[in-house]
């Protein structure tokens, strides 16, 4: 029974090592709660319901893209029966959501997705001087 300290010591080290991710999580303050999104400054009504936008905004964006580019029809009739010009930078960002970093990036970074939209579409309010910086940061 002389090796009891060794056994308990080893057990303690083992437990510490396998629970390490939990400790580190607590330390860095990570929660399972998603990121807080900045609310649109002025607009109260999106082109579709929040639930739909949360789950399917990428499909809607692609549908709008095809409509504007392939059919040459830049008008989208939203759920609230408002008509919107299809423009990622001009309408989605500038009119409603304001900033790519405050809105799009927060969720995309959290979810670990990097959509290619911004390699061509411009972030509203960014001058070209920062274009290069914007791209290299992604």
């Amino acid at each position, binding site marked *: 029974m002389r090796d009891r300290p060794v056994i308990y010591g080893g057990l303690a080290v083992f437990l510490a090592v396998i629970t390490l991710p939990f400790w580190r999580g607590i330390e860095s303050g990570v929660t399972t709660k998603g990121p807080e999104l900045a609310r649109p400054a002025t607009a109260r009504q999106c082109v579709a319901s929040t639930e739909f936008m949360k789950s399917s905004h990428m499909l809607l964006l692609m549908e709008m893209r095809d409509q504007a580019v392939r059919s040459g029809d830049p008008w989208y009739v939203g759920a609230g029966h408002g008509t919107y010009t299809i423009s990622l930078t001009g309408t989605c960002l500038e009119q409603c959501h304001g900033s790519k970093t405050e809105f799009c990036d927060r969720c995309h970074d959290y979810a670990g997705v990097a959509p290619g939209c911004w390699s*061509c*579409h411009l972030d509203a309010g960014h001058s070209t001087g920062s274009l290069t910086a914007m791209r290299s940061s992604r």
Partner: protein
Amino acid sequence: MNLSRKAFLRVSCFSLLGAAMRKTAAAFGSTFSRKVQWGMAVDIRKCARRPECTACIDVCDQAHNVPRVPDKRHEVRWIWKDTPEHAFEGEDFRYSSIAKLPVMLMCNHCDDPPCVRVCPTQATWKREDGIVAMDWHRCIGCRYCMAACPYESRSFNWVDPRPYIKTANPEFPTRTKGVVEKCTFCVERISQGREPACVEACPEKALIFGNVMDANSEIRRMLSSRDHVTRKPELGTGPNVFYLL
């Protein structure tokens, strides 16, 4: 199944004939049934009144975020200036009065565009109104269209264009490395009922834009009253940019 030799031959002959007729009808139908075909007339002499003027190039580059890459090999251009000798290859300009005048060149938005035929992803296609449009979302950068275009109207983004755009226009996207681009006759303005940016910007009104299918349009009146040429008409592409002599 019991099919006699004669019946078999008859059926195959009729099927072949039917297929051929559909192809033929489609080929002719697209050209003749078009109600709108946007076109441009360039008045070479009016344009040459200001030999140093680059208003159309500047406004186009600004409107569409066309990068100004200093390296000629990586140049991106939508509308540019060249000599008549280059523009109208094969013509003899030795004693011509326009030999030294600059000529504005751009995509010809051909009736039968070879770039559209070769594009493997349909990233470039001919719209109902005759504009050879581009969908940069689809372009995979294979450059088949560049090889097919006899007018060198298409440019490839060999490098990231963004560092070469001085002040970006947020209304229009930039392109990314590995994508082909060209003049689109300002589709984004046409959908709002406006003329292309270069036409609006020209201080001499040397660019005339309009529907060449409409016999009463200004461009058609211009073309019927003045002598004009197109680039490389012998290729059968049917260019819709006309040069008034």
